[in-house]
């Protein structure tokens, strides 16, 4: 049938179509940058490619005069460390509470409403409390990430757990499994890949909270640098950093996706 929904682009056209939105954004940037620079050659809002390139070299490949560090590397390591600790802690806490809340009626009775309410509290609005409780150092940045994404993981995992076919639980019980054995042998194996999905979906929020935390008080980090540079509108540094953050986030997501595919192959059985 010659209907739009039945027409498949060729491989080449698929690639071209995929590249088109990116090309359009780049083109819009180039045109706008050109227009502004022709009026004011010192314009900082939309710098040209050569200025951006110089900034990339300066931040990434030349040691900083004052500290002797490569700033981009230092910022990246600091940020990734905070992100990794925060996400790891949130995954463990979120996974545990989520499974309990989804499986054990008593836990659900106690926690379900609480987590739904807590999930609605914007963590950035209670920052002063986090600071005074956890200090201004690394701990409060990690805590902000954990507080920010745990409620989502808990709710998602609880929902997934409660969606497990009841028959499986009955079957396990007829075979004599205790609650503990059911958790370990029936629920947990099925929930781990869902947990990875849940973490993947929370990564965007985790980055957001990381950058917010670094904007508020920090000595290094990707968010720190962006907010420092904003003070004098150094978009030539900010734009590569934004691109770099996007790339890192995309890569993390990709790694998790591949890890899930490889580790939990059974989930994809029966799919094309």
């Amino acid at each position, binding site marked *: 049938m010659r209907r739009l929904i039945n027409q498949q682009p060729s491989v080449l056209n698929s690639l071209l179509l995929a590249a088109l939105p990116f090309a359009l954004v780049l083109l819009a940037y180039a045109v706008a940058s050109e227009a502004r620079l022709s009026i004011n050659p010192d314009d900082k*809002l939309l710098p040209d490619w050569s200025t951006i390139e110089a900034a990339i070299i300066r931040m990434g490949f030349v040691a900083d005069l004052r500290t002797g560090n490569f700033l981009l590397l230092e910022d990246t390591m600091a940020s990734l460390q905070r992100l990794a600790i925060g996400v790891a802690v949130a995954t463990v806490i979120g996974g545990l509470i989520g499974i309990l809340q989804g499986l054990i009626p008593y836990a659900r009775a106690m926690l379900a409403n609480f987590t739904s309410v807590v999930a609605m509290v914007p963590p950035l609005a209670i920052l002063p409390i986090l600071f005074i409780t956890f200090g201004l150092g690394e701990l409060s940045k990690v805590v902000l990430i954990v507080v920010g994404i745990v409620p989502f993981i808990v709710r998602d995992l609880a929902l997934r757990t409660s969606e497990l076919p009841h028959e499986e639980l009955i079957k396990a019980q007829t075979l004599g499994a205790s609650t503990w054995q059911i958790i370990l042998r029936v629920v947990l194996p099925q929930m781990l890949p869902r947990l990875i999905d849940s973490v993947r979906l929370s990564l965007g929020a985790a980055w957001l909270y990381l950058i917010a935390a670094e904007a*508020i008080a920090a000595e290094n980090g990707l968010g720190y640098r962006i907010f420092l540079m904003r003070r004098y509108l150094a978009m030539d540094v900010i734009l590569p950093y934004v691109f770099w953050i996007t790339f890192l986030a995309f890569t993390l997501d990709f790694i998790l996706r591949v890890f899930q595919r490889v580790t939990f192959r059974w989930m994809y059985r029966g799919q094309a």
Partner: protein
Amino acid sequence: MKFFPKFAIAAMTALALVMSAPAQAAPKKEFKVAWSIYVGWMPWGYAQDHGIVKKWADKYGLKIEVVQFNDYIESINQYTAGSLDGVLSTNMDALAIPSVGGVDTTALIVGDYSNGNDAIILKDKKTLADIKGQKVNLVELSVSHYTLARALETVGLSEKDITVVNTSDADMEAAWKTPDVSAMVTWNPMVASILKDPRANSVFDSSSLPGEIQDCLVVNTDTLKDNPDFGKAMVGIWFETLALMQSGTPEAKAARESMAKASGTDLAGFEGQLKTTKMFWTPAEMVAFTGGDLVPAMDKVRNFLFTHGLLGNNAPSADVVGIEFADGKIIGDKANVKFRFNDDYMKLAADGKL
């Protein structure tokens, strides 16, 4: 590229142009100026809300809007990008952001200088030299950072002797209450509130740097050149509001109370902040200051900016941006003057010719 229809290119180009249109320097009738909360700038909000802005704009047949920004740096960035005709800024930030960004900027009104509003506060320690080896929380690259750099010079220390922790101004008060924060540089109203803590000691403040941290209304030089009436109206608004505040009438008290409330404090708190601000209440005082020798102050400011990389990464020296003073003297690159002091308009006010 058959997937790239011509109309799409045209549309994107048009969009890009609209997005990027900088402020055009040509006679115009509508002006937009931004201010943010600071003791010396509160009169602007009052003037906007109580018809003083409208009165002077009408007098010159203009439309002037004085809008409040919650984020000071964002207001300066917006001015630099071209969406505002003027902004309330310190001399340092005006030099570092718009002027370095190629936007020729004129300080039309030098409203005050900080005379104690910026302070270095230590927890439990009593002298400035005790700051050595500490982590210092401040807004990096701000006037706080400048105050710190100047203070360290006075006791023979440098920034290598401390660790700077960039901290958002909105979170200073919360940060002070945390145990790991032991040294802080910030400005009013945060200073006043932090000093209420008995463990807090102010070990240095900007009263030791008279005239160096100026709070100005800066406007686009080309816009001002093409629209002198805009400059006259702004100066008129400013001194009418100040005269009202100083009149000693019930309206004066009401005006001060309203400004205090708008800045989140009470009358006593506002008066306290005014004491650490050297306001130029009359046009004559402002002309005397602006027309005086500002070279040493601006030279220190530009050197701070240069050593912190804020004059551009390719800047060979602090001379890269020219600064013109009210008497026509120029320091720095004469072919690249981007920051100017101008006392013509305040003189008109002093002579009653507005």
